[in-house]
């Protein structure tokens, strides 16, 4: 069995690599069309991800929020709740982190845990709101979470131009949080890698166990269908709200980490594409903790590599998006093509239809 699984994993990797290469090849065409040298472009890309200690550290810096958020998202997805509101929940988390860090008149050492807790609670609340709307009014969560994204975004804009605007300038941003509060840099001042890393590791460990906990099972079962869940003694509505809450809580936490580790202040564009990325990563990792970890690492590297390819060559910025899109599509395509023409057959002797049903 273990030997079979190891083969399977190996095959997974091979397949993924093949697909990524395929995507890169198509990308190469665009690179050429824009009168650039694909070899150089991709060298820049790889160098940008693994070229130096600095680069690798940067990949990890990206990894921290992406991994935590996609784990958060995957909780909701497991229950068949399409929470595409990660972006908004992240923003809400960041907002209260900064608000508390800047304004709450208590000693600094107290503000840190306070904001930490608040970020989780608010992120959770923002998502649970969508959960409640679904449970109470059966309002589809795809819509509500989407709308809540926009609302969170404009709330941020309001705050950075109004109540929370930096008093020392006319810029649309808040003041930075005091030095004393920031997460410590792990590799010295020239590296951004911060102690949020440990929080990430903690979260991962928790998540590895999570799906074995009572709650984990309950959430998973809710995803199997309202009827069977109710039959098994689960209060579906309550679980829906709870699940969304957990999901949003982790995402809010990611917001806190980004503020205290990287951003130090609120301004437009702190969420970047994190929301979408989290959704993609969660699904690429097929909601399985290890899968998500792999996908998250891969994607962080891809993003960093892409960014530096943009910088170091004359390849148009758009090509990076194209390549990302291609990779996503190719990789999801792989999961299926792979299962379909099931290469396991080469290894396993005739066995029943167990692997038949997806």
């Amino acid at each position, binding site marked *: 069995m273990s030997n079979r699984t190891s083969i399977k994993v190996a095959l997974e990797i091979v397949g993924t690599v093949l697909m990524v290469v395929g995507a890169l090849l198509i990308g190469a065409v665009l690179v050429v069309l*824009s009168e650039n040298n694909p070899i150089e472009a991709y060298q820049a890309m790889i160098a940008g991800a693994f070229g130096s200690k600095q680069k690798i550290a940067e990949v990890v810096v990206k990894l921290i929020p992406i991994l935590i958020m996609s784990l958060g998202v995957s909780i909701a997805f497991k229950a068949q709740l399409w929470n595409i509101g990660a972006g908004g929940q992240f923003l809400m988390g960041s907002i209260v982190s900064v608000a508390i860090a800047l304004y709450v008149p208590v000693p600094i050492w107290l503000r840190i845990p306070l904001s930490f807790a608040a970020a989780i609670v608010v992120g959770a609340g923002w998502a649970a709101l969508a959960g409640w709307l679904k449970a109470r009014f059966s309002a589809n969560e795809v819509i509500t979470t989407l709308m809540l994204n926009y609302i969170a975004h404009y709330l941020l804009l309001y705050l950075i*131009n109004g109540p929370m605007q930096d008093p020392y300038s006319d810029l649309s941003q808040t003041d930075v949080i005091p030095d004393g509060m920031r997460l410590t840099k792990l590799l010295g001042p020239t590296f951004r890698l911060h102690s949020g890393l440990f929080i990430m590791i903690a979260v991962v460990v928790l998540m590895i166990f999570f799906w074995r906990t009572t709650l984990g099972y309950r959430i998973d079962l809710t995803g199997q269908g309202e009827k069977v869940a109710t039959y098994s003694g689960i209060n579906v509505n309550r679980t829906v709200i709870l699940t969304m809450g957990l999901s949003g809580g982790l995402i809010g936490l990611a917001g806190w980490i980004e503020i205290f580790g990287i951003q130090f202040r609120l301004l437009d564009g702190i969420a970047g594409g994190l929301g979408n990325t989290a959704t*993609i990563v969660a699904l690429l990792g097929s909601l399985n903790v290890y899968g998500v970890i792999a996908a998250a690492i891969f994607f962080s590297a891809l993003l960093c590599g892409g960014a530096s390819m943009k910088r170091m060559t004359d390849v148009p910025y758009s090509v990076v998006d194209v390549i990302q*899109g*291609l990779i996503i*599509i190719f990789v*999801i395509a792989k999961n*299926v093509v792979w299962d379909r023409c099931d290469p396991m057959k080469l290894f396993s002797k005739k066995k029943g239809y167990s692997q038949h049903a997806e």
Partner: protein
Amino acid sequence: MLSEILSIGFLTSLLAGTIRLATPILMPALGQIYTQRAGILNLGVEGTMLMASIIGFATVASGGGLWMGFLVGILAGAIFSLLMAWLSVTLRVNQVIAGIGMNVLATGLAAYVYRLLFGIRALPAKITSFQAVDLPGLSDIPCIGTVFFQHNVLVYLAFALVPFTWFVLEKTMFGLKIKMVGEHPRAADSKGISVTWIRYAAIVIGGAYAGAGGVFMTIAYLNMFTESVIGGFGYIAVSVVIFGRFDPYKAMSGALLFGFASALQVRLQALGSGIPSQLLLMLPYLMTIAALIFASKKAEFPSAYAIPYSRMER
């Protein structure tokens, strides 16, 4: 200020704006009714619209003529959505990620094409867009005229598509097949209907409508392309379909509601209601949620919604 809001001028302008802004939501939404009724959730609409908007625009800019551009846009939408069809029907991948993947791809591709064709220029490429059709008599009826009869032809087309879509779904074999495939693909299959074919068709039609909506933005609403020209209309359209419970008329009211909120929002800002602009900007989204709550009632999703079908599994 209230007096200004109640002034005829304000209201007519507001309603005209409502219709204008509803159009680019309505077109894709109608298309997604086919798609979602067939059991496919296509979040890739946003990207599909974007692709159509650039390709259609490019056609016109290169002297293809407006109608040509419109058709090419529709075609582009249809073709791009084939990707979704292949992923979700043939490969049976998770539809949410397929959609998002397509959007990422389109974002890059559209920008890339635009640069490739037009390069970086001081002033953006610009075309003469569809102009408001002037219906002698109608157009210059005081208020009514401004609200209803001073739009370009595509706006009317979009609204004409509402009854059309309804008719196709309710009165034709094709419509019935779509519903069957969305409700009970296995049954459809055993009745000799090709689930694959119908779903492909439904997705491609959805793509064509989305294409129409996309190209509408660049050659009828505006007269130029910018990378954010679609600005979320695709996602809104998908919401509107669910919100409208897969019914063309309800979807239309959804689109109008959203258009209304957006049009109202900017006008309230202009009048200098003491409310901060950013809070007013939330209005359309808040209204959508509110509407969802009041329209509270289980939306009867097609039973096979977002579920891939294979004859071999049970």
